[in-house]
């Protein structure tokens, strides 16, 4: 399993069948794999917050949902994550390419990247930082049930070193 396959397999084995996305260079291969899978509905969105709303609606209609995005998208989604997802107890897996971590070469990614784990802590949302494909598979596979149990989204942060 390479880094993208581990995420794809984790999502598939968790039963995820509805994914929204805003791209990241690190997510390119994964996005291609999802596009080729006819059993997954994949909706690219204009902004991550919009994607959170779409996932809420899809879950109401019976889908198991995930969002793929950069960690910058967390900043674009905070109110929806609290006052839609947590308020109504919606499950969601959030797969985040965690930019601004060790090895980042774009300075613009660093401020949000450094704050991302602390933002999730402040939101009281569970998150995992798997360091290799096996750990990512396990974390993602477990996240859907954990998210239902918690009544909140669960995040997977994939640092630059992961890829």
């Amino acid at each position, binding site marked *: 399993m390479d880094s993208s396959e581990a995420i794809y397999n984790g999502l598939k084995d968790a039963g995820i069948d*509805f994914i929204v996305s805003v791209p990241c260079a690190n997510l390119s291969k994964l996005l291609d794999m999802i596009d080729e899978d006819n059993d997954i*509905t994949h*909706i*690219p*969105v*204009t*902004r991550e*917050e*919009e*994607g*959170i*709303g*779409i*996932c*809420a*609606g*899809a*879950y*109401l*209609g*019976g*889908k198991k949902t995930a969002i793929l995005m950069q960690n910058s998208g967390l900043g674009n989604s905070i*109110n*929806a994550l*609290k*006052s*839609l997802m947590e*308020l*109504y*107890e*919606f499950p969601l897996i959030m797969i985040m390419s965690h930019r601004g971590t060790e090895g980042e070469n774009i300075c613009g990614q660093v401020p949000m990247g450094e704050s991302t784990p602390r933002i999730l802590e402040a939101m009281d949302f569970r998150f995992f930082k798997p360091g290799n494909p096996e750990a990512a598979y396990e974390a993602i596979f477990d996240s859907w049930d954990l998210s239902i149990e918690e*009544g909140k989204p669960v995040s997977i942060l994939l640092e630059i070193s992961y890829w």
Partner: protein
Amino acid sequence: MARREAIVDIMDKIDDEIVVCNIGFPSRELYDIDDRDKNFYMIGSMGLASSIGFGLALARPDNDVVVIDGDGSLLMNMGSLVTVFANNPRNLTWIVIDNGAYGSTGNQDTYAQVIDLCEIAKSVGFKNSFKFEEIDLSEVIKSDDASFIVYDTEPGNSKAPIIDLDPPTIKNRFMDSINS
């Protein structure tokens, strides 16, 4: 006339459709006028009514979904016009009650007063972009494309009470009704 009468008009045409309703007074008024299990009331996350309705429409292609949105909320999530149009879910009917005001916060003016939302939807590409008074809502709901409808009203809120259901109850009741 104000929003409440618009919601009465809309609900007169609703049979067994799923309804997703915008945050604040719109949901309170809908709850007061015609509470049904198939209504999803927004309590938070202004702007996302159309996104929630769009996700539902994709997940439930055999159900018709009607979104009751507002002009201020639409302005907060204009990208949704593009995403909905590009995917064109035939079972989604998106109604914007345009009172030119942020009604739930004291009727402050919105920029919708100086633009034409129907023309914007047309320019994005919506074949079905109508004023409510021009159409029969029941027919538009059954059309083969996603539809965008503007219902022009005056600002103003009724005395509708606060919704006395907690959000998980709104969600669970709604899911039970559409999955039964």
